[in-house]
C-alpha cells in the first residue's frame, strides 16, 4: 500500500472520507435506479410514509454492513491504531446510520429532479459536513487512551438522526406525488 501504517489521526480522517464516498455511491443507487414503472407499482401498493421508512431501513442495513466491511479492510491494510475498538465500532455504526439516513432522503430529492448522482453530492455535502466533523472529533477520542467519548455529543447525533427520519416521513409524500 502507498502508506503502510498511517498515524491515528490520518487513519481516522481517511476512514471517514472513505465512508462518505461509500455512502454516496451505495445509497444513491436506491432511488436513481428505480424505473418509472416500478415506482408506479410501489405507489399502488404502499403509502409514501411506509415506502420511505422501508427505504431508510434498507439503506441503513446496507450502510451498516458496508461500514463494518470497510472497518475490517482498513484494519487489515492500514494497521490498527484503535485504542478502544468497541467504542470506535459503535461510532462507526452510528456514523454509517447518520450518513445513510441523510443521503437516502437526498437521493429521493435528486431522483425527483431527474438528475444524476452529481446533484446529490452538491445537495448533500454542505448538509453532511457538520455531522462528519462531529463524528471525526468524537472518534479522535477512540484513538487516545486518556480521552473519553462525550456521551452528550453522541446523544446529539442520535437526536439529529431521529429528526431526519421524522422529516423524511413528513416531507416524502410531497416528493412522491407526480
Amino acid at each position: 500500500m502507498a502508506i503502510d501504517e498511517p498515524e491515528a489521526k490520518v487513519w481516522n480522517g481517511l476512514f471517514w472520507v472513505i465512508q462518505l464516498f461509500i455512502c454516496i455511491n451505495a445509497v444513491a443507487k436506491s432511488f436513481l435506479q428505480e424505473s418509472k414503472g416500478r415506482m408506479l407499482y410501489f405507489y399502488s401498493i404502499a403509502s409514501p410514509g411506509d415506502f420511505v421508512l422501508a427505504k431508510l431501513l434498507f439503506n441503513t442495513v446496507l450502510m451498516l454492513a458496508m461500514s463494518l466491511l470497510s472497518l475490517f479492510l482498513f484494519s487489515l491494510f492500514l494497521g490498527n491504531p484503535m485504542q478502544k475498538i468497541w467504542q470506535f465500532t459503535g461510532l462507526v455504526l452510528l456514523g454509517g446510520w447518520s450518513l445513510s439516513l441523510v443521503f437516502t432522503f437526498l437521493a429521493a430529492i435528486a431522483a425527483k429532479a431527474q438528475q444524476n448522482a452529481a446533484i446529490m453530492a452538491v445537495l448533500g455535502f454542505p448538509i453532511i459536513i457538520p455531522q462528519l466533523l462531529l463524528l471525526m472529533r468524537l472518534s479522535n477520542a477512540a484513538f487516545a487512551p486518556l480521552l473519553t467519548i462525550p456521551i452528550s455529543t453522541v446523544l446529539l447525533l442520535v437526536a439529529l438522526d431521529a429528526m431526519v427520519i421524522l422529516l423524511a416521513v413528513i416531507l416524502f409524500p410531497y416528493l412522491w406525488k407526480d
Partner: protein
Amino acid sequence: MYKSWWKIASILLLIYTVVGGFLMSVPALPALQETIRNLYFHVCMWFAMMILFTVSVVNSIKYLRTFNLKYDIYARHYAAVGIVMGALGYGTGAIWMTYTWADPNNPAFQSFSALAREPKLIGAAIALLIYFAYMVLRDSISDIDKRARISSVYNIFAYAMLFPSIWILPRVMDSLHPGREGNPALNTSDIDSSMRIVFYPAVIGWTLLGVWITTLKIRLHLLKEKQLLS
C-alpha cells in the same frame, strides 16, 4: 403611505446605526480597540441572514400547505437576499480580521491555518453552500410546479439540518469568536450595555432593509409571472 412606516423606520434606524455607531463611546478592549464598532455591521449581517433564511423556510412550508406558487417565489427571493447578507457578513468579517487576527502587530494575531479552521467561518460557508445548492436545484428543474415542490422540500430539510449544526459546532470546537458559551451576542456578559443600545436597533434596521429589498424583487417577479399566477 400607511404601509411604508417600516421602510421609514429602517432608514431612521440605519442612520442612527451609522451615526451612533461611529460617534458613541465604546469600551476600549485590548486587541479590538475601535474596531469593535464593526459589531454594528458584521454581526447584524449574520442576524439578518438567519432571519431571512427563516422567513424563506416559513414560505416554503406555506407553499407545501397551499400549493400557491406565490409562496414559492417569496421563498426563493428571501433565500437570495439572505445569501447577499451572508456575503456581506463575510466581507465585513474580512475587514475586521485585517485589523485584528490577521495583523501581526496585534496581540490577537493568528496564523492563516488557525483562521481557516475557525468553526464559525466553516459554519457560515456551509450555510451559504446549502442555499447555493438550493438555487442550483431550482434551476435544474424546468417544470414550475415540480420545481416549487422539490425545492420547498429541500429548503425545509436543509434548514432543519443546518441550524442545529451551526449552533452546535462552535460549542464543541475551539473558536476565536467570543461567546462560546451560550448564544453569541445575545448574552448580557458578551457585549457592554452601552453597545447594546446601538446593536439591537442596528439588527432591526439591517433586517428591515433586507426585507425591503426582497419585497421589491418579489414585486418584480410577480409582475413577470402575472399570466401564470392569475
